[in-house]
């Protein structure tokens, strides 16, 4: 087990709570010192990225994780809550248990990266910066916590923590219909959390740690079938309850993904959220849904993962095709990207539904790639919205000559988003299709989903045409090209997109061991 501590505190704790320190620092700065507030936020998120890079340098890709504590890295474990006489049923023990493996580590990297990018992109926020950055940093803590928690209770706490700042960030700093969007987002996620909570409590009461004989929230213990007595609620004899629990969890996570038909909060939230928050939302938050599916649903209920393969594949296919069709009909640039996110997250679900090494590798890779690519797209929407104060696709034209640098940035991101080879999403999408093709039924779904790549190309190229080609309307004669700050937030992402398109192994190697382990676990191969 890799021990890695700074000042006696584990690196994951630093990763999770560094933003809180930043938040406190911001609270101490007077409201008028906007510049210092911005620099503090960027400073702390940069530190986060540095720590992530340090983790990357010592990360051992050979360790699998998933259902063995020994396979996790940077593990921190201590007792957090301990109620000796809890109700009539023994002892409530919640652990502060964190660690990363090949499924969570790419997400940790993504979160660190996108948080910094988002902090830079937030410079365009022009009112109540102090409050904004306090909320922003708090949000980062919530997100990071979700990806590193190995205790269900802790996971749930971070899951809910993330909700609160998001609500305010959309509700206060958002666009015209911000309150509607914020409430919709909040209630929708809360609705999903209710399912999560139910299953979590069910798991707790039906579990019995084989070593201590206590109920447990420890995810890794919960993955062990021996934890459940055969006649307990989620025991082997209660197959129906286990499947119901999987379905319940699926609803909870599907809302976050978002999977059809639980997706309508997303376009509203995106359209109303400020640029940086859209970036976070699409870049990281959506991945919490698919991550939760892999980490909790698939790992604790592998029987459910097998049982629900086909329904998940069908939902994935609907996401892909339906999301693309909806995107095509949009007149608002941001809404179009939001729907394209729905379509692209469908690929993630399709890869996961296949339950194959290559499919799930593709899914995780796609989670990372979609995070980076969509971040560029939303940043680019922000660039144009900041200048023109409109996002209407029909309001533009001819920007290619007016804003050549912007054109280059956006066209690369757009081609990446339609899965152009040489750019990162191609590898992940191809993996997903290769995985989906292994199963006879999902193969049919995959063949239908291939239509999605045509539709994607159609609406993206049409968007390029409407924004960049043709003649420049006169009102945009003094539009300025993308500036240095905006380039700083987009170019690194573009470099990553190109790099991972050519050398995917740098990301793949981090996760293959874990994915193989997970797939073996799902199919009961040991």
């Amino acid at each position, binding site marked *: 087990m890799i021990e890695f501590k700074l000042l006696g505190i584990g690196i994951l704790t630093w990763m999770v709570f560094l933003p809180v320190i930043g938040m406190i620092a911001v609270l101490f700065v007077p409201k008028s010192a906007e510049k210092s507030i911005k620099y503090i936020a960027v400073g702390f998120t940069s530190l986060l990225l540095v720590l992530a890079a340090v983790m990357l340098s010592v990360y051992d890709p050979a360790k699998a994780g998933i259902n063995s504590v020994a396979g996790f890295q940077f593990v921190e474990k201590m007792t957090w809550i301990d109620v000796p006489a809890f109700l009539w049923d023994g002892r409530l023990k919640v652990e502060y248990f964190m660690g990363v493996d090949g499924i969570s580590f790419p997400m940790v990297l993504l979160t660190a990266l996108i948080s910094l990018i988002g902090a830079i992109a937030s410079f365009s926020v022009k009112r109540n910066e102090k409050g904004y950055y306090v909320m922003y940093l708090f949000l980062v803590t919530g997100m990071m916590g979700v990806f590193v928690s190995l205790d269900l209770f802790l996971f749930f706490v971070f899951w809910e923590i993330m909700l609160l700042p998001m609500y305010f960030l959309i509700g206060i700093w958002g666009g015209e219909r911000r309150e509607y969007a914020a409430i919709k987002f909040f209630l929708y996620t809360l609705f999903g959390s209710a399912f999560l909570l139910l299953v979590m409590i069910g798991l707790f009461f039906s579990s019995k740690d084989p070593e201590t004989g206590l109920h447990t929230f420890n995810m890794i213990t919960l993955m062990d079938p021996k934890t459940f007595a055969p006649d307990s609620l989620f025991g082997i004899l209660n197959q129906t309850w286990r499947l119901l629990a999987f379905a319940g969890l699926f609803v909870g996570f599907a809302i976050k993904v978002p999977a059809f038909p639980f997706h309508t909060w997303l376009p509203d939230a995106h359209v109303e959220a400020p640029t940086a928050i859209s970036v976070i939302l699409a870049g990281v938050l959506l991945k919490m849904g698919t991550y939760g599916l892999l980490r909790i649903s698939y790992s604790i209920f592998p029987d459910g993962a097998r049982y629900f393969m086909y329904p998940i594949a069908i939902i994935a296919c609907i996401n892909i095709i339906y999301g693309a069709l909806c995107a095509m009909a949009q007149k608002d640039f941001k809404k179009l990207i939001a729907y394209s996110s729905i379509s692209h997250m469908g690929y993630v679900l399709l890869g996961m539904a296949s339950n194959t090494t290559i499919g799930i590798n593709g899914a995780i890779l796609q989670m990372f790639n979609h995070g980076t690519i969509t971040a560029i797209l939303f940043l680019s929407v922000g660039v144009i919205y900041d200048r023109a104060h409109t996002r209407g696709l029909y309001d533009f034209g001819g920007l290619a000559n007016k804003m050549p640098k912007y054109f280059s940035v956006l066209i690369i991101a757009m081609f990446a988003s339609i899965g152009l080879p040489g750019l990162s999403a191609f590898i992940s999408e191809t993996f997903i299709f290769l995985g989906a093709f292994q199963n006879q039924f999902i193969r049919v779904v995959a063949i239908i989903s291939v239509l999605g790549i045509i539709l994607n190309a159609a609406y993206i190229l*049409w968007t390029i045409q409407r924004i960049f080609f043709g003649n420049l309307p006169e009102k945009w004669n003094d539009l300025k090209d993308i500036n240095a700050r905006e380039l700083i937030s987009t170019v690194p992402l573009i470099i990553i997109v190109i790099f991972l398109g050519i050398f995917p192994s740098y990301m793949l190697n981090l996760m293959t061991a874990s994915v193989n382990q997970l797939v073996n676990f799902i199919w009961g191969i040991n």
Partner: protein
Amino acid sequence: MEFALHKLPLVVLLIPMFSFLVLSFFGKKLPRGGDWFGTTLLFINLGFSVFILYSLTQLGKYELNVEWFNLGENKILGLQTFYAGFQIDALTGVMLVVVNAISAFVHLFSVKYMENDTKYTRYFAFLGLFTFSMLGLILGNSIVLMYVFWELVGVSSYLLIGFWYEKPAPQEAAKKAFIVNRVGDAGFLLGILIIFLTIGSFTFNGIFEGVEAGKLSGGMLTAAGILLFCGAVGKSAQFPLHVWLPDAMEGPTPVSALIHAATMVAAGVYLVARVFVMLSADALTVITYIGVITAFISATIAITQNDIKKVLAYSTISQLGYMIMAIGVGAYSFGFFHLVTHAFFKACLFLTAGSVIYGMHHVQDIREMGGLRKKMPITFYTFLMATLAISGVPLTSGFLSKDSILAATLAFGSINGGFNYIVPILAFLIAGMTAFYMFRLLILTFLGEPKNKEKYDHCHESPKQMTIPLMILAALSFFGVFSFNPFDASGGWFLKLVKMPEHLLAGTSGLFYHILPLEEYMEHIHHAHMTAMVLSLVISGLGILTAFTFYYWKKVDVEKLTESIKPLYNFSLNKWYFDELYDIIAIKSTMGLSRMSAWFDGKVVDGAVNGAASVTRSFSKFNGLFDNIVVDGLVNLTGGMVGAFGLIFRKFQTGKIQTYIAFLVFGILVMYFIFRVL
């Protein structure tokens, strides 16, 4: 020496990329916008490619493979590793030279042609990007790598078709090209998926071994073959996905020469040639017929077009169909041979068309031209040479390749019999039509009287930077480049290098198709050769003669003739109405579906969410009312009653102790009586 040589293809691949990067980032700072930079690099690259081709004839083929990535150790599948690499064999060696040569000449030609364009540097950068992608496509030793570069050439093509994106037509054409190609590519991708599923390898050698070992056979093999061919249908503009290529002529003319005539569109043919040995008999049947149908349809369209580039575009589609058909009938080497000869003479035709357009100040309609021979002699003679080649006149390269293809179609008829004779019949007919419409183009453009006197007077011969590439390309359309014998190429270096391979499934049959062992097959071709040559000479001669009768000697009134077959003429002029058809079945319906989805999403799905919210809200309102009226009402009622009683009872509360005692005694008495009675 050997080590360096084996790395040379990588250098050849990366040089154009280098040109692209340098021009993209620093091009504007270089003198003359950096045109000399890209052009010089390309000529150096051409030198390297010729050297590689030469070394190939000396050292034989080789391959370089490195691990690209792996998926780790899996308990069932073991270590899944994916390789990437390149191979140098006859196909690649020849293609390297063809692509680099034409790219270099197009670079040179563009220096003058694109002069004064505001995006001059960007143009040369894109040419570099295209050349890089095309070379990658050729060099890649695995089907996935091929797909990767396949898509990249698609993007470069998109960027170059839409190069003048200020105008609406190029935008539309670029988008159309990309999306139509995507349709084919979707099939290509599915083919790759089948191959991975059954064989588990992506390298061509691995795939062929898998097919030989029977891992992929029967219906799946046919499906895989047809799906891979779908990619070729898109890229090589075969029916029914041919509609993008004529529109692609909106790009700059040198680009049309490079991408949409000589190299990229031939990629589909290259793909089919690459995987030829594993194509099942049924897949080959499909390929043959798609090829011949494409060749026929586009030849009928080319006859009536009036835009110089459109005629050439349809002739390109037709010739590509010819190549596809050739490989379909099993004449692998001949199809590929035609690809190469066609690349040179068609590039020459397009560049001469460019020269005409340049000289005529952007006139493209041949009805405005005529008599240009006197004004542009070099352009005329090079055009003539290429036209002779494409029409299959002896002493040209086109004669050699076309003649062998025709022999192969005859052999195809004799092997498979029955209705399969339609293939050679159509093939000969197309050869005649080709000769006809090419000479129609030549006569209307260069001979006769000028139709637009004013344009004619301002017309001039193009400068040296443009005419030199023309002359070289015209020279490359001469038979001697490929063979000493002007009537039989089989002794020439080309067909000695690119040999017919033994098909992996030789001896098997499909529904209407027999794959013969190589020797037996060659026997059939040999038999057909003489007949084919004579027939083709007669037919192309007839085609040329008809063109002269119609348009030069004017023995037949063309106007009257078209009037008498008006419906047919319109059908051809309007390109068989494919665009209109696709507009309805593909574009309009997709857009409709998309609007419907958006409506459904807003009204139904989101409506349900909002509905649930408002139901909850009205319930909570009701709940609130209930709380206010009923629950609180009850509480208030209780309170009120207590109050009312209080009011009554207050009367008794006088504050005097005597009264209380009196009440107390009264109460006790009342209680006493009650209990007594009970």
